[in-house]
């Protein structure tokens, strides 16, 4: 089955769960005065769930005529591309999200930029490290000191 049909199947599931919530669970907790309104909080979601289910079924069953188009990247041959680098970078983003608060902005961001470049094949440490440190310092100064948006610079065990 083509990828777009798999995605349509997932979207169909989402629309069914969404529709079930809208049609069968939302109205129960509605205050009596709201029941007299011509429109309820569930009205718009109910309509959307129906359109969503119909649209995902049309894609799933292949009812719309059109050629299968392969975009810039053929997902069936992912091995031919730099899939490892992409996965490592996505993983690095998750690690960055988890470390930003406990390890502080300066360390997390410098490490993110250096490791990110390393994953992509850069080995010029004498360029990578200063670039990452200068960029981190500049962004921290701009956001925290100039704009006044708090970004904890240091790890939690070194104070604020």
């Amino acid at each position: 089955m083509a990828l777009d049909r798999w995605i349509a199947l997932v979207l169909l599931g989402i629309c069914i769960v969404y529709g079930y919530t809208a049609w069968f669970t939302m109205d129960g907790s509605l205050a009596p005065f709201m029941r007299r309104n011509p429109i309820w909080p569930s009205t718009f979601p109910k309509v959307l769930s129906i359109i969503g289910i119909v649209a995902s079924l049309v894609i799933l069953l292949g009812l719309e005529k059109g050629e299968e188009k392969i975009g810039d990247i053929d997902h069936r041959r992912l091995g031919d591309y730099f899939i490892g680098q992409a996965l490592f970078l996505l993983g690095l983003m998750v690690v960055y999200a988890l470390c930003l608060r406990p390890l502080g902005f300066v360390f997390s961001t410098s490490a993110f930029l250096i490791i990110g470049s390393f994953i992509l094949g850069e080995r010029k440490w004498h360029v990578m490290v200063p670039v990452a440190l200068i960029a981190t310092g500049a962004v921290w100064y701009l956001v925290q000191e100039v704009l006044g948006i708090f970004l904890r610079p240091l790890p939690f065990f070194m104070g604020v």
Partner: protein
Amino acid sequence: MLEGILIGLQTALSLQNLLVVIGGCLIGTFIGMLPGLGPMSIIAIMIPVAITMGDPSAALILLAGVYYGAIFGGSTSSILLNAPGVAGTVASSFDGYPMARQGKAGKALTIAAISSFAGGTIGAILLMIFAPMLSSVALLFHSAEYFALMVVGLSAIAAFAGPGQVTKAVMMTVLGLIMATVGEGALFNMPRFTAGIMDLQSGFGFITLAMAMFALPEAVFLVLKPKNLGDDGGEIKDLRITRAEARAIAPVIGRQSIQGFFIGVLPGAGATIASFLGYAVERNIAPKDEQDEFGKGSIKGLAAPETANNAACTGSFVPLLTLGIPGSGTTAILLGALIALNVTPGPRLMVDEPQIFWAVIMSMFIGNLVLLILNLPLIPYIAKLLAIPRNYLIPFILFFTLMGAYIGQNNATELLILVGFGVCGIALKFANFPLPPLLIGFILGGMMEDNFSRSMQLYGGVSFILERPMTLGLLVVAAGLIILPILRARKAR
């Protein structure tokens, strides 16, 4: 009026105020490039500086400069990195980013700068002439008309519904609308579809979604299939617009300046709707062969939203200056600044303090001009950003993507949501689902539901569609914008 214009010019052209407007434009442009910091946040940040200046005219001139600079800065990140930091510049990335990928970043930025200048300047002329008259017309627009306007804005998705793609575009729009219903709505005051998760109480963040659907998949695609965006190094910083291109975008700029201005006058409509509407209208009235170019790097597709959002920003000053009603978040903050400066906007402002009223309008002209003069020479250098080697550029794009979401919400969970949505965005892109309709649906969905619900409650049903001629007219226009291209395509086949 002539006397007022002279007073305004005298105030705005003093050396101090000229320096203030130049500084404001530069600050706005550079901070506006950071995803997550739109005009509203930048103006809010600059208010203490403006207040300490003491002189209300100078303070407002500074804020106007920051405002225009921030809008242009936001367009830059949309065009170069496909990372729209504010909703008003989302439509600019539809054609601006494809142009940048084709090695025409310099040209795209020049078109954006010129369109913004023209939109802002024509808007200021219209503001000068029509301000008092329009303020009363704007109040005729009720929730029913706003709902119809959103429907017209939604017709912009037609640009992404190519052959065999119509259902996918509809599906993505519905998904965006579904996501807009998550959280506590303004009208119903009860949480919906939050599954008891506190972080979802206020719904999904716009910036998180924009970064996840636009910037992140693009960056990952650049990793998968390496291609330096600056490969066409000779052309990337080329600013030149050919005579044919200038001739093609001139009518677009003219139309969208007027349309964008009038949309901006309506309280609550603003730059976002103006830009989507401008994009939809220009695509639908374009000849068939040019229509196919929309979404793939059309100069008209870039000029339309850029002109419209700037003209709308100027238009939003009409209710602010003449009625004291802030029509958008940004003008609400400006209203706060005015009050802090002991200036009360409203019908009496023009009579009681003409030097302030006219200085603000004149500063719009000067701000736009200064922005153009400052930015045109900088464009080659800004465009050169794309020539940074991929090994350095991609980690920076990913970092700014994350920062955009983090600054907006100050919540690390938002970053995990961003990565999660980003992975979904990548999968959707692999399967050729168009992503812009999702964002269009998400942005317009909340406003559309609120206005629809308000109208239903006022009229006790859907009778408002027939009872309000303006609503009916707008809905007919929306239907036309969707149906006509389909009929035209069928006929061509």
